[in-house]
């Protein structure tokens, strides 16, 4: 099937760019050779491509590599200067000689942070133990023990009898409830 002018013109650019299939290319070529209007369209497209390329080429030919490279080199040097300036600024801070005072200060700071937990209980970074929260009350044979666990907000209550004083009492009873209750 031969192509009509409209479909040829839609793909004429791609054909000139070599971006159509071999079969399509043969069909377009056959049409263009036979159709003066599409042949003229082809010439216009080729001319456009030529004018555009020539214009840009001429524009670029005015720029010499020396002047172009100078601009790049300047940027590279400036980049290196900025890099060097940054290290010049940073170096005094990290120099071992200047760091001498910083070591004891750091040690004191770390110790202060570690000991702060003891003075400001509940800061969150000290060791955690549920044992510290256990309380017990002796009630003449009926004993009560409480375990409060702050992380999960759980309170466990134990009711138990003293074995020395009781003989026929039931087994220990345990109850668990949320602290919010």
């Amino acid at each position, binding site marked *: 099937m031969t192509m009509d002018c409209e479909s040829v013109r*839609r793909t004429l*650019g*791609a054909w000139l*760019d070599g*971006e159509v299939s071999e079969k399509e290319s043969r069909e377009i070529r056959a049409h263009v050779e036979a159709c003066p209007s599409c042949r003229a369209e082809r010439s*216009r*497209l080729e*001319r*456009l*491509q030529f*004018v*555009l*390329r*020539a*214009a*840009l*080429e*001429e*524009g*670029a*030919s*005015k*720029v010499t*590599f020396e002047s*172009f*490279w100078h*601009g*790049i*080199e300047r*940027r*590279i040097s400036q*980049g290196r200067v900025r890099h060097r300036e940054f290290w010049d600024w940073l170096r005094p801070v990290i120099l071992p000689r200047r760091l001498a005072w910083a070591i004891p200060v750091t040690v004191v700071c770390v110790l202060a942070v570690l000991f702060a937990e003891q003075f400001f209980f509940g800061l969150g970074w000290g060791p955690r133990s549920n044992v510290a929260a256990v309380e017990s009350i002796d009630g003449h044979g009926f004993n009560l023990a409480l375990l409060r666990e702050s992380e999960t907000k759980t309170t466990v209550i134990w009711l138990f009898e003293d074995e020395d004083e009781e003989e026929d009492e039931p087994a220990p009873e345990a109850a668990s409830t949320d602290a919010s209750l």
Partner: protein
Amino acid sequence: MAPDVKEEQRVIVEPSDWELVRKCQTGDVGAFQELAAKYYQKVFMVILGILNHREDALEIAQETFYRAFRKIREFRGGSTFYTWLYRIAVNQCIDFQRRQRRAPAEVREAIDELLYERGEHGTDPYDALEGKEVMSRLLAALNDLTPDHKAVIVLRAVEGLSYKEISEILGCSEGTVMSRLHYARKKLQEKLAHFL
């Protein structure tokens, strides 16, 4: 130095470019100078085609190469070197245009300035392209295109890149490249109807 065995399969940079790239990756400025000498004109042409302003184009082209130099350690040879370079150039142009947001009047002034320089000196090679009128219309027609349309037509005109390569540079499909090219050519043809 040959590419690593691991990278061998995906390295599609021309051997000479790859050699230079590897040297650049070790901080060899001389090798980068060779790459710049090889590609500066084409990169400049692409940028000039998109920006339509000589001084801006020069500035952005130099910035493109500077950025390429800074980022060259990240280049692994997954694409050709010039495709990678053009991608940086096109992104630079788009960023620049976003920053500038030149008013049409200013663009017109830039074209007039360019034409004035050419008329005054009388030695401009563009005169060979049927004089000021064609140049003026070509620049004006290019300015009417979006940066994406300008990029496809310029990349095709300058380097004769395949649709696949252009699609890699612009991050779009080959079909999009084809339709953008068709549209851009149609628009330029309309504007330059009497000269083509």
